[in-house]
């Protein structure tokens, strides 16, 4: 931005100034909320991350000691690994599942509105309720999932109490919450130009070719958006493991946010928890930047050319 394009306040006409004032006035609830409820707590937690703070006593400045302690904390690494697992394994599964679902829901079949509603409904249910329902679904003795596996001759695991299967079980639970991303994919799918599909058809492209050569590239911006949101959400996963496993068995589902919460509110290590939060922020930022950097290779913008 050059200086010439930045409007200076004193150069504004009266009208412009008044408009600016009204604009600011009308967004002020958000701005004040942001400053007070987001920016201030963030700033405070950044300060606390360099202190020994227990919620009650005045914070004591200890420099980077919290961050150094992190490196030697076994549970920090365990929780980081668990969270990465949920992201690296969970996100592709979730993405494929929700894109697939959106493609299916984009077909011209009878009762479409009904199906669309059905697949969105679980997203309206509170996480606590979803988690409890899934604890029942995953129950090895009377849960429907293992009953179904039993019909196929498979003896299903004790999902939530098994060190290997507990994390996949959480991913499975997460699939219930794909409603919002399916909606976004559906919107993107409706934007795919019909003429392109028709042209491809005339050239003899089959359904799969159309999907992979036209539809997917055309909705890649939506995939991009959902992947970013998914990474952020998955790194912050908290409620499901808290309710369904409380980090167990033997820390197999101790996710980052749960460990952070324990440090803050059970162990009173608020400074350490703040350091954990900022490390998580850094990791999410890094992942987001990486995805952004690679996006030029796989995200196609119709109007932006090589943006």
């Amino acid at each position: 931005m050059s200086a010439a394009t930045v409007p200076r306040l004193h150069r504004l006409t009266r009208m412009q100034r008044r408009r600016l004032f009204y604009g600011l006035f009308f967004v002020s609830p958000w701005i004040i909320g942001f400053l007070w409820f987001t920016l201030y707590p963030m700033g405070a937690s950044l300060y606390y991350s360099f202190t020994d703070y227990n919620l009650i006593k005045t914070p004591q400045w200890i420099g980077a000691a919290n961050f150094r302690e992190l490196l030697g904390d076994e549970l920090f690494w365990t929780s980081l690994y668990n969270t990465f697992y949920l992201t690296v394994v969970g996100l592709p599964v979730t993405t494929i599942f929700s894109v697939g679902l959106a493609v299916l829901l984009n077909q011209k079949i009878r009762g479409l509105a009904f199906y669309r509603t059905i697949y969105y409904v679980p997203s309206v249910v509170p996480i606590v309720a979803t988690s409890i329902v899934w604890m029942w679904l995953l129950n090895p003795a009377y849960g429907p999932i293992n009953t179904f596996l039993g019909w196929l001759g498979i003896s299903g695991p004790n999902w939530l109490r098994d060190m290997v299967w507990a994390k996949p079980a959480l991913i499975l639970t997460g699939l219930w919450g794909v409603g919002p991303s399916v909606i976004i994919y559906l919107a993107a799918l409706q934007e795919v130009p019909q003429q392109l599909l028709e042209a491809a058809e005339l050239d003899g492209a089959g359904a799969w070719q159309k999907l992979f050569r036209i539809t997917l590239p055309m909705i890649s911006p939506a995939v991009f958006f959902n992947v970013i949101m998914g990474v952020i959400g998955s790194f912050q996963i908290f409620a499901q493991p808290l309710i369904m496993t409380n980090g167990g068995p033997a820390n197999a589902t101790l996710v980052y946010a749960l460990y952070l919460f324990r440090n803050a509110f059970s162990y009173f290590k608020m400074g350490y928890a703040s350091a954990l939060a900022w490390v998580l922020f850094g990791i999410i930022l890094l992942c987001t930047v990486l995805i952004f950097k690679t996006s030029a290779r796989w995200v196609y913008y119709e109007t932006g050319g090589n943006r």
Partner: protein
Amino acid sequence: MASKKRLAAKFTLFALILSLAVLVLGIVPAGARTTVTFWHSWTGDEAKALEGLIAEFNKTHEDIQVQGISQGGWSNHHQKLLTAVSGGTAPDVANLGSDYLPEWAHNGALTPLDSYISKSKYDLSDFYPISLQMGRFGGKTYGLALNQDTYALLWNKDLFKKAGLDPEKAPKTIEELDAMVEKLTVRDKDGKIAQIGFLPDFPWGHFDLYGPAFGGSFYDARNKKITANDAEIVRALEWEQGFYKKYDVKSISTFKSGFGAYATGNYAFYTGKVAMVVEGEWQAAFIPKFAPKLNWGAAPFPSPKDKPGAYGATTTVGSLLVIPKGSKHASEAWEFIRWMEQPRNAGKFAAALHNVPAFKSLADDPEFTTDANFRVFMRLLGSANARHWPQIPVANMYATEIGSAEEAVVLGKKPAKEALDEVTRKIQAALDKAK
């Protein structure tokens, strides 16, 4: 103009009458009565029992008005209380779980009660030693026990009869228990477990009890040393692990997952799927409600044959009355605590909750001793082997780590000694740092 004047006159008259009425009715002895806010975790009938006591206190104390405010459940209450203390808006008095006390006291969230106790010559000698101990931290008293739980072994007499065991005899030693479990475990024709004698970590982990029952101690208070790898504790965990080896982790976990919910008629001990469990005194109230036909008994948890001195072990945890830091009416709050902590009043509340009271003078009160099973829990509180989890600055972290170690060992991921060595090292380091 005239109408305005008339209105003003009317208003003045009205105000005069009103203030006169107020004076006559005596509602405004301003400043004479201090309002003490009391945050508590109880709801429903339990809150009603507490409200009854509060009303009685208010009736008998002209200068203090206690206002009880339920914070809607145990963990909600503690979270809100912590936030309030941290934000400088603490209530004047509150109840606090004894398992929360050490971290709260260590971090300065509570006011020590010692000066109030000595000033008002409040007599602590009626408390059971373990009840007093659970309210103490670092040599100071921060909370007084209102009601508490103890744990014992419950057994299903009918299943004992069916297995050819004496239905009136609970195991006295771990060896007896193990032998009984064998007799009480039944498999169906596919070899799947259909009934089991005992599950060490059911309905939840009880390792804090097995440690002392095996003669071990989790903490050496004199030398400030974490002793999770104490030989007796290791032995206790190995015993628990042996259980899972013998009956197989996977078979047990499949069997367990078919259990019905706790506090319903489908609870596995009520339905006879598990013949013996470690449970708290509230079962004396639960069982008549959920499983009235259950024929059961309660006895202290057994100890190994070579450790007869450890017999009678129990663990306890309870609710304490505390004065949070930032209480604006601390001395009035103490007046309320002092009143509540009379055996008569605290006893009334414990009885309403079907909990064990903390006072020796209630040891033979028919309210608590008519039921033979409840009496077992009462007596355990006075046992020399009654324990509370160590009240140290890192108590919660210690408990969490022990729980994870227990899980890892039971699942066969680590040997008991190794897991407990790790816990000892980690918690010792955290403890040394916390000083």
